[in-house]
């Protein structure tokens, strides 16, 4: 058995680690490229959202490298994601590509099915071995997420553009190669030192921008046209509403156990949106409020074109923006999204944020001068 999985940010690092610890061979799909997109747009329905297209591209490229089994997450709720695995399976079957698909979804009571699927991919490993592999993978994931937050801080302040991004690629490699928990800790430590060694600018004219929206476009740089890097190199520190480890904790673990940790999001969004709309639509509202309250300069919403939960959020955000006094800009992404067009809008958005900040400072000074 050779297992593969879709790309989503640095998800491949913990997944490869998990399966190789259990002695299962894995094939990481090649990094998302033009070819991935070309496969996806050719074989997926045009009006499916972008994540599905990229998934299909990933699977076809992995199959070429010898993968025979795909692990795919499932989902529940109004978002179309819950149906992806099934549609993808049909597409692969129609193409005559021999890939077995194992779908892991929140059990909703069907624990036996989840167990059965897990066993199908973990082979004969004992529970203890699974636990150990899981712990190592989880630590890699949380280490990467911690370092990524630091990356965002450093990138906005680096003296030489590109330093932080280069360091980050190195860090992902180190963590990918770590084979034990202690090696992972060592790699994380090295990574922190690596980022700390980057020379930073003294002036602190850094804008702070929160990024909200649909999880896949948020986490996969190849799909969001590397919006975080582009912003970072413009001197903008970004903060994201979703990190991979948070999502695993909330959706895969807590929700499966019928526990919640999102009551605060519901409470914050309540004046604008009173119920779940699928995906992270509600979080796009609540996090915009959070960012406004913590003094961020602006908010960027990302979503794949035709994403229903985020369309709901998009139509509510102008009101949140007005009430909270924080500028918001939306990018709907698909295979036609252009890097040049996005850069133009991002530059103009940053000009707008800088000018607002200058005005705020000016009026503050005027207030201080008054008795």
């Amino acid at each position, binding site marked *: 058995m050779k297992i593969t999985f879709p790309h989503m940010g640095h998800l491949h690092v913990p997944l490869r680690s998990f399966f190789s610890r259990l002695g299962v061979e894995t094939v990481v799909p*090649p*990094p*998302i*490229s*033009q*070819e991935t997109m070309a496969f996806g747009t050719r074989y997926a329905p045009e009006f499916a959202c972008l994540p599905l297209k990229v998934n299909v591209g990933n699977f076809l490229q992995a199959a070429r490298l010898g993968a025979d089994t795909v692990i795919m997450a499932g989902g529940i709720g109004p978002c179309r994601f819950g149906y992806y695995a099934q549609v993808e399976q049909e597409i692969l079957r129609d193409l005559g590509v021999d890939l077995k698909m194992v779908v892991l979804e929140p059990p909703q009571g069907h624990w036996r099915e989840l167990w059965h699927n897990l066993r199908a991919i973990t082979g004969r490993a004992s529970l203890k071995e699974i636990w150990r592999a899981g712990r190592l993978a989880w630590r890699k994931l949380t280490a990467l997420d911690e370092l990524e937050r630091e990356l965002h801080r450093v990138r906005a302040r680096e003296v*030489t*553009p*590109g330093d932080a*991004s*280069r360091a980050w*690629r190195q860090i992902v490699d180190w963590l990918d190669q770590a084979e034990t928990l202690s090696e992972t800790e060592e790699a994380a430590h090295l990574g922190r030192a690596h980022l700390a060694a980057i020379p930073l600018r003294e002036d602190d004219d850094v804008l702070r921008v929160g990024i909200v929206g649909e999880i896949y476009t948020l986490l996969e740089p*190849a799909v969001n046209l*590397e919006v975080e*890097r582009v912003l970072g190199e413009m001197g903008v520190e970004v903060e994201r509403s979703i990190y991979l480890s948070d999502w695993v904790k909330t959706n895969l673990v807590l929700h499966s156990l019928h526990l919640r940790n999102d009551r605060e999001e519901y409470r914050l969004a309540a004046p604008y949106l009173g119920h779940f709309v699928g995906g992270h639509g509600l979080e796009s509202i609540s996090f915009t409020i959070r960012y406004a309250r913590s003094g961020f300069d602006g908010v960027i919403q990302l979503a794949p074109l035709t994403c229903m939960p985020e369309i709901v959020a998009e139509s509510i955000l*102008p009101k949140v923006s007005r009430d909270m006094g924080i*500028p918001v800009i939306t990018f*709907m992404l698909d295979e036609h999204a252009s890097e*040049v*067009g996005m*850069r*133009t*809008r991002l*530059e*103009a958005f940053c*000009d*707008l944020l800088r*000018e*607002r900040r200058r*005005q705020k400072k000016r009026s503050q000074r005027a207030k201080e001068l008054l008795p």
Partner: protein
Amino acid sequence: MRAYLGLDVGSVSTNLVLLNENGEVVTGLYLRTQGNPIRAVQEGLAQMEKQIPAGMSIAGAGTTGSGRQLAATMVGADAVKNEITAHAVAALNELPKVQTVLEIGGQDSKIIILRQGVVVDFAMNTVCAAGTGSFLDRQAARLGVPIEEFGSLAERAQNPVRIAGRCAVFAESDMIHKQQLGYPVEDIVAGLCEALVRNYLNNVAKGKDIQAPILFQGGVAANVGMRRAFEKALGFPVIVPRYHAVMGALGAALLAKRAVAGRHSTRFRGFDVSRWRFDVSSRSCGGCGNQCEVVEILGEGKLLARWGDRCGRWSSFVLEAAGK
């Protein structure tokens, strides 16, 4: 006397503006890019060189438009800015109290909302180019009306016909249909203007708080029919600035003036650039799976810039060289 050069290199037109120290326009040029921005920039510089009054020298240069990076590399620019900011700067210079800028160019359209002299919101067309200059050009040609007379023809209309304006292709077939039903051409032309304005307000300006004073900029602002249609739909007077067609370049020149304020040097390479030989090559980098398309710009055989890579492997080379 010090002068400032602004270049706006767009998909359809390449515009140049020369400003004097007081921020007044000395010369404005409007050229067709015709898919060759390098030639358009060189042609513009050559014309500008002929028109520049004696005793005037370039103290700063700025670029904007989708070709701003390329133009900046070629001519040497002190300011490189996106077209939204450039248009806003030019609008504020024209009318400091402006609250809304409608801009329709060759292939894009935008709206900029300003309050107290600051941009607070903006949008650009994303999905469709119906309603932009290229489409109007095409329809004028199809009806056999010179584009310059298109607007005044629309003004003579008694009963503008309702045209489906959502999509350029459907608008065209709807117009043909109305012609075949025998509607007078001026009613169709006026109907088209109204349809395009409706399309703009429903797409680009969707959800934006449009307040007077309103400036209408870009090449399409020359069209009186479009201006009237905007006034009719918005219920406010719409002002078309004198240099409406070159406002982006004007903004770039103003930004250049700001950038070099207090300095006595400019990055501008001089008008000789119009006679340089420029070479462009592109190739796909095989360094990783991203397979970025890397572009190289050479001027007189010397490497000026590289871009298109995500990792900085190629573009940083030029940064380093410039640093030394």
